[in-house]
């Protein structure tokens, strides 16, 4: 059997999902973060917010469940859980900017050692930029976790000293989940909390664009698939 394509994305999503606490209000960004809700234990009440005006986003809709007016911010047809509510976009962003959403899980092109986030523009001439809610969420959610591939497709690091791409927000990322490691940003430094046991310090350093330290509580990064 061939492994599913992009299994690393599911592993990143699974690992981040293990750190969601009951009662958390969470916004999931486009990309890897949308996979996170699949891996939250069914008996843990985590409330997902979608910036198009929904609290209590449930699993993706099956063909029988589809309601044309029920989509998430990634335009996927969804369901809602009992207790869900609908509201307009101004109220959705009141929740986000006003610090009422505990946690936003966002995709990222790059994150810098001081927590700068770049996830909205690849700065390509002639190509229109699109920003959506990225800047509002990055500026307003109480905590930002970045879920991303550790390196670019060409092997260059995405965790860097200074972002090359235009910033979405400065100094906002607290934690980073990648296919190789779980890191925290502490006082302008990457601190590795978990990493793949098969990777040596040198291996990880080669793939990371800034110095880092290992946490005293370092553990191997283990996922079930």
């Amino acid at each position, binding site marked *: 059997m061939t492994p599913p394509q992009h299994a690393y994305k599911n592993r990143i999503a699974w690992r981040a999902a293990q750190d969601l606490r009951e009662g958390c209000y969470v916004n999931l960004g486009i990309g890897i973060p949308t996979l996170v809700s699949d891996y939250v234990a069914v008996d843990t009440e985590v409330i997902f917010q979608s910036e*198009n005006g929904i609290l209590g986003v449930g699993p993706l809709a099956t063909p029988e469940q589809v309601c044309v007016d029920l989509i998430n911010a990634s335009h996927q047809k969804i369901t809602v859980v009992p207790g869900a509510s609908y509201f*307009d976009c101004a109220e959705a962003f009141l929740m986000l900017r006003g610090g009422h959403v505990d946690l936003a899980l966002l995709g990222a092109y790059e994150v810098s050692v001081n927590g700068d986030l770049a996830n909205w523009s690849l700065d390509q001439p002639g190509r229109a930029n699109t920003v959506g809610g990225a800047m509002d969420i990055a500026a307003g959610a109480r905590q930002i976790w970045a879920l991303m591939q550790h390196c670019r497709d060409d092997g260059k690091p995405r965790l860097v000293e200074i972002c090359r791409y235009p910033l979405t927000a400065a100094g906002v990322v607290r934690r980073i989940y990648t296919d190789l490691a779980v890191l925290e940003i502490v006082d302008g430094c990457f601190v590795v909390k978990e990493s793949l046991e098969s990777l040596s310090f040198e291996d990880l350093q080669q793939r990371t664009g800034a110095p880092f330290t290992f946490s005293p509580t370092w553990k191997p990064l283990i996922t079930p698939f």
Partner: protein
Amino acid sequence: MINKQVSDAASAIADVPHGATMMVSGFGEPGVPKALLTALLEHGASDLTLIANTAGTGFTGIAALLQENRVRKIICSYPRCPGSVVFEELYARGAIEVELVPIGTLCERIRAGAAGLGGFYTPTTVGTRLAQGKEHRDINGKTYVLEMPLKADFSLIKANKADRWGNLVYSAAGRSFGPVMAGAATVTIAEVDDIVPLGELHPEHIVTPGILVNRVTLG
């Protein structure tokens, strides 16, 4: 007797002049006033400025107005998205002006327009290129950027049900921009799936009060 219902979408938008500024509701497919957009295309008004979340997808609605060169400028948050082929082609050859606004700022600018406010300070975009050239201000130790209100000549919104006073209720994620854009224009026109007798919509359930709506038409 107050009756805001007009016979059809074409009559509802008949007085839109060339050069008008138009707000258009919708986030993805839900909440898009399709009949009003089709009527606007047939009506022929051009040199329009649109205020919307996206620049349209496929070849209908906003995308059709763009394709027919009716739109001079678009103020939106998410112009490039899967299916935005018409916009991308116009943009690549410099045939449309874009003002890119983060969606939370876009909503709040529209809300400020409807609410009679002169603008507001937001933390969104601080430290990014979208804040360049804007007034910054430190308030209680945090930096904010000044954003200006948005108003329009017409708001085209989509709701689920209306009564003859223009009270509105919405359907799920079809709400998104409707309640925000209602009242932010000189004339707010609501396209709805159903018009019910006055009194049938419970006062506790009405989302947009009729004072913010000028015309209602069936979609």
